């Protein structure tokens, strides 16, 4: 099954990895440019290792929380009889549209004194939960429910049947989601700075902002990169184990929704209300409240709408750039998991764990030297977005490709198609929805990006995030609130696009139509 990748593909993949790692090269130059001693000085500070430990702990607890909460929610949305299932599906995905700095700020204004590790944990877990829910629910939907049913006939109670028969089969999807969550937490600056938790990314910012110390900042950012590599490697190992299990199966039948008793139903609704409340309702309501408190709330509709358009435009550029770079790496990772490919994959993920300011400065350093003509145009900005968010696209491409057995391409070739034509007419068609979802995820993330956008955008152009920053910087929170809300609303569009296939996948348990009944009745495809 372990085939050798075609040399050109491997070459392109390697080039992508190097390109995406340019900021890492910048960091090495910056950190070691003036010898080892400043690096050793930075590493000798106890504060560095405190931040390192705290960052690792925060990433681990947030990732664990999103798994523990996200998997049951994914199950509820795909398997249980749930009132207003479609609405809930959209609602739990919507926190993706709330940037973590908006959420953190809103929470702080909602609960005065809201800060510290626990606060950051809550805000980050609530805003990253959809990263676990989406892939897990999709994987559950694709699974044959017969496994769980057989387990039940073998004397295993429902929860344990799920844990033993189903969970291992969706573990790769859960792990992929948890990986994105962990990397998000590593790179996040907005929430941790507002909620005052000294993670590495905050210390990196401090090195720039308070000490003007780029060497120390680079050293700390390299530490973050190391942490990211460890997380990615751990996920790769877990996935490597799970990939052997894959068994080509026919399209699964959709099981009838599971009836829960009144108690569990109440508990599930409570969980959903809590998740949507923390991740969506409180941020939106508190931001709305901000708008009504101050006198700075004069809204320039022209500025707002031009910021909306620029946000969408940059989002599309970042999306295309990230997906184009991700295709060769995703293809290699799904089809040819040899050690060199694993390395390429690992390197491509590093940018995602670095704070935006680090990637921004790295692209400044490299862009102005290699492509002076493109500096501070959307071309270089798009490149920065690709570096930051290519892992999201890679994960989507790899995940979709893994569900398409290469044998289908072999079949197509026996039908007289060239290798490329077979790939295009079979594999590309089959992975399109999954890759599309990854692309939309990138789009959504780019729209919320701030530090790299500030540095690299064409002079004078504004996204919603930069407007928001400009206004909060001078503390005109009431004037900033419409931009925060607009960002949430604009972000809600891709978020809904992500939620729709999931919401549509199954008829609501309450109103089962004749077609659905026939499907239930007749299990043979």
């Amino acid at each position: 099954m372990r085939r050798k990748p075609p040399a050109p593909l491997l070459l392109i993949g390697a080039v992508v990895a190097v390109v995406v790692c340019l900021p890492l090269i910048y960091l090495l130059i910056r950190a070691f440019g003036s010898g080892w001693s400043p690096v050793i000085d930075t590493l000798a500070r106890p504060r560095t290792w405190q931040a390192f430990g705290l960052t690792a702990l925060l990433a681990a607890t947030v990732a664990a929380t999103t798994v523990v909460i996200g998997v049951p929610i994914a199950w509820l949305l795909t398997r249980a009889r749930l009132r207003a299932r479609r609405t809930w599906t959209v609602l739990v995905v919507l926190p993706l549209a709330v940037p973590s700095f908006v959420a953190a700020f809103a929470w702080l204004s909602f609960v005065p004194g809201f800060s510290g590790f626990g606060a950051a944990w809550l805000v980050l877990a609530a805003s990253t939960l959809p990263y676990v829910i989406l892939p897990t629910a999709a994987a559950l939907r694709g699974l044959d429910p017969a496994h769980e049913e057989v387990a039940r006939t073998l004397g295993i109670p429902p929860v344990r049947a799920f844990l033993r028969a189903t969970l291992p089969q969706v573990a790769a999807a859960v792990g992929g989601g948890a990986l994105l969550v962990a990397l998000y937490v590593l790179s996040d600056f907005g929430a941790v700075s507002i909620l005052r938790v000294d993670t590495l990314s905050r210390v990196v910012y401090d090195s720039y902002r308070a000490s003007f110390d780029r060497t120390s900042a680079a050293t700390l950012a390299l530490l973050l990169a190391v942490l990211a590599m460890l997380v990615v490697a751990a996920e790769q190992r877990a996935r490597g184990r799970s990939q052997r299990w894959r068994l080509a199966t026919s399209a699964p039948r959709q099981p009838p929704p599971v009836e829960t008793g009144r108690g569990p139903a109440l508990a599930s609704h409570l969980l959903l209300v809590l998740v949507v409340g923390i991740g969506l309702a409180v941020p939106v309501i508190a931001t709305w409240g901000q708008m009504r408190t101050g006198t700075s709330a004069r809204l320039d509709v022209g500025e707002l709408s031009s910021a909306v358009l620029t946000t969408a435009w940059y989002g599309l550029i970042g999306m295309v750039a990230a997906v184009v770079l991700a295709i060769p790496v995703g293809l290699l990772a799904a089809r040819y998991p040899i050690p060199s490919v694993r390395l390429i994959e690992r390197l491509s993920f590093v940018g995602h764990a670095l704070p935006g300011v680090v990637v921004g400065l790295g692209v400044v350093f490299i862009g102005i030297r290699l492509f002076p003509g493109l500096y501070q145009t959307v071309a270089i900005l798009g490149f920065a977005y690709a570096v930051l968010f290519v892992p999201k696209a890679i994960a989507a491409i790899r995940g979709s490709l893994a569900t398409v057995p290469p044998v289908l391409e072999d079949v197509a070739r026996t039908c007289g198609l060239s290798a490329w034509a077979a790939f295009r007419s079979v594999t590309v068609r089959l992975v399109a929805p999954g890759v599309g979802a990854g692309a939309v995820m990138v789009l959504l993330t780019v729209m919320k990006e701030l530090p790299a956008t500030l540095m690299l955008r064409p002079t004078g152009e504004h996204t919603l995030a930069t407007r928001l920053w400009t206004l909060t910087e001078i503390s005109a929170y009431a004037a900033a609130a419409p931009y925060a809300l607009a960002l949430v609303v604009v972000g809600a569009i891709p978020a809904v696009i992500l939620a729709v296939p999931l919401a549509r996948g199954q008829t609501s348990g309450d109103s089962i139509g004749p077609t659905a009944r026939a499907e239930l009745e007749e299990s043979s495809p």
Partner: protein
Amino acid sequence: MTGEAGGVRVGDLMVGYGGQPVLENLELFVPPGEIAAIRGSSGSGKTTLLRALAGFLRPQRGTIELGGQLVSGPGVWMPTERRNIGLVPQEGALFPHLDVAGNVGFGLPRRTRGERRATAERVAYLLALVDLPGSERLRPHELSGGMQQRVAVARALAREPSCILLDEPFSALDADLRRELREQVRRLLKKVGTTAILVTHDEAEAREFADRVHRMSGRQLD
């Protein structure tokens, strides 16, 4: 546990979705140790009956007795895992993340060392029974379709169920293999003496496999 007074007894069963009955006033009796076949075309309700027997669906009315025990009736509802049944689904539905031994021993205890040894012995015995000795470490995707089904049968027999439910278990196989496997499984069930219910749309298969054939007609059995 193949109790003499057992078998399968269904009385006045009604199962429906959204107020529309799929099965109504259904009666069925399968004496202990007998193999029954339920034959019906697509959408006739035979799978619904099987799912009600297994406890995946809750009937609106009527009683179900398995191995002499009332598992479903007025005020009585026993969940699937306590019904002591075996299920052989369409394409086996082997757990892809477990090897053959893990699949067959899925429902057997393995907390203590003693339990693990007993389970391993039981698995080896069952695999010999289905003519797959020594296949413990193989993965489902390394097995042919017929072998997968035999592992599924072994898994269903592992806990000495009072009744085995077979849901079109041979439909995905080619004709020769289907006949061969059908014969092999029938011999096996007779040897173990388990009550069994086969759901199929194939009249010939129903006649060859079962001691008695029931046909779905309307919302009942003939």
